[in-house]
């Protein structure tokens, strides 16, 4: 088994306000607004959190910390427990066991004090009002509101602010949802698949305005299916599958953990046991004389082949994208689970 947990001892967060401005009892920055720094403890902390729906384990002993000013992507296949985790974080659902802390208090109070702005996949909008009326309403409910015009501009919805909410396209609706998440001076922003239903151009605009929010020192957590997005926007990626945390690191680290180089060559006489023993090897595929290897260290793997006296031809070394890394990590976890179920309980499953 591989250990994917990545300790980020080199963590440094800079430029997010001055530590002396941070009031640790209220957690509000006094002059810098969001001024939380790396030294002031986690914004969010999950301690061994589980959630069961009947006998179904949606989230299974999840432990993680979100650090101030950090942009974190939550990645996982459908049904991995992403939405349930975000629901619990936002006090919409209660954990079956374990504890969630946000800004040193419980999620409910953190949400009610306006310290969290969130955009849910399942969050609806009030129909029959205009975009501006809706944003004005939700802004009015925020303890620390931003000017309505600022929000409209930042979310890129000023152009259709006088249109009725129920007459918008999917992408426009999504941006209005986003506006509701940023209409106050929240320190943490939580987005569940924010760019679903957006076209490429809208998605680019979205991430541009998101970067402005983050530049002000806000902490951002987003769940996404678009791995490219996680790769580009996130400082840190959390991979979850079956309700458990499988990997935690920078996009580069995640790729490395999954054996993020691809090495392929032709070999006349393939000796599979030898190939399986190669250093750094994560996955091996042999088709006739074509060998394809996923490796965490392509140099070491290739040298070992050469040192053993082999002279492979048509050598190609390439990088794996985050997508392959993600698939590798979750596939390995799924395989491990299926294996355990078969040997352990004679479950009678067929693979």
């Amino acid at each position: 088994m591989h250990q994917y947990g990545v300790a980020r001892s080199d963590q440094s967060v800079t430029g997010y306000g001055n530590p002396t401005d941070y009031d640790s009892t209220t957690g509000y920055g006094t002059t810098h607004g969001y001024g939380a720094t790396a030294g002031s403890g986690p914004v969010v902390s999950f301690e061994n959190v589980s959630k069961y729906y009947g006998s179904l384990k949606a989230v299974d002993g999840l432990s993680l910390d979100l650090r101030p000013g950090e942009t974190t992507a939550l990645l996982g296949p459908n049904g991995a427990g992403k939405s349930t985790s975000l629901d619990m974080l936002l006090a919409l659902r209660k954990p079956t066991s374990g504890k969630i802390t946000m800004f040193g208090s419980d999620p409910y109070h953190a949400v009610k004090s306006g310290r969290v702005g969130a955009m849910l996949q399942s969050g609806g909008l009030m129909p029959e009002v205009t975009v501006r009326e809706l944003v004005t309403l939700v802004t009015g409910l925020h303890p620390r509101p931003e000017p309505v015009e600022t929000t409209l501009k930042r979310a890129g919805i000023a152009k259709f602010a006088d249109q009725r909410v129920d007459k918008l396209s999917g992408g426009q609706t999504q941006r209005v949802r986003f506006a509701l998440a940023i209409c106050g001076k929240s320190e943490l922003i939580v987005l569940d698949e924010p760019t679903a239903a957006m076209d490429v151009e809208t998605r680019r605009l979205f991430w541009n305005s998101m970067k402005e929010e983050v530049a002000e020192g806000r902490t951002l957590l987003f769940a996404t299916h678009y791995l490219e997005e996680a790769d580009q926007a996130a400082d840190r990626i959390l991979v979850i599958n079956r309700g458990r945390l499988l990997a935690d690191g920078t996009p580069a680290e995640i790729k490395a953990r999954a054996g993020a180089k691809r090495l392929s060559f032709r070999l006349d006489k393939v000796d599979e046991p030898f190939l399986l023993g190669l250093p750094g090897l994560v996955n091996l595929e042999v088709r006739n004389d074509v060998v394809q290897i996923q490796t965490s260290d392509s140099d070491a793997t290739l040298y070992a082949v050469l040192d053993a006296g082999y002279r492979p031809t048509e050598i190609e070394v390439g990088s794996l994208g985050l997508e392959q890394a993600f698939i590798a990590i979750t596939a390995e976890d799924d395989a491990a689970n299926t294996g355990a179920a078969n040997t352990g309980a004679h479950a009678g499953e067929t693979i």
Partner: protein
Amino acid sequence: MEGTLLLAKAEVLRIRRNKRYLIFTVALPVMFYLIFASSGNSAYGVGFKAFYMVAMASFGAFSGAFNNNAIRISQERKDGWIRQLRLTSLPANAYVVAKIISSLAITVPSIVIVFLLGRFYGGVHLPIWEWIVLAVAIWFGTLIFAALAVAVGYRFDPDSVQPIAIVIYFFFSIFGGLWFPLSGGLRKFGEFTPTYQIVRISTDVIGHGSTSVGYVIGILVWFAIFLGLAVLAVRATAEAV
């Protein structure tokens, strides 16, 4: 409370733009009054025009509070608007409270318009205090039916809420004698409905300046029942909205 009022204000704004509201809460009672107010001599011991004024004001309050809300609440629960509101600093019950406040606000015009119609078209003359008692009794009805709407809207999905709301609407309109006065066996049964009780409190006040304690207890009991059902329905969905 400030936030809840803000939400209630937005609710009123939307309802005013809704044609359904105008039709069911204002236009229909007015139309019925113009058509049917002269179709009888007397009912429940008062002139028919006075009875029909009370019945139509109650009908408007009932449709405004119940019809509008039950379907909307169900739809907004499904759409996730209630979830979205839970992410604001509003207290957990704000959505329901705002619905009830806005119902109270939007039934005022229908009650006032029907009363004006009764006074100037139907020639109903009453002492000021009786007008006030009538208005309060009917307005209290709004509260009862808004609670029922919450119970129904939270309990049923948008797909099934429409027919259920229509059945409830017809049931309380017909068996409450809102469209035509009840008599005989129908009345013995209808006496138990809150719609009948509200109409009778009003006609009794018009007829002899007082009303039976039974009706007053009746509407209070109905209010308690619907409020209890509403609380149960809201609690049942507390985790899943």
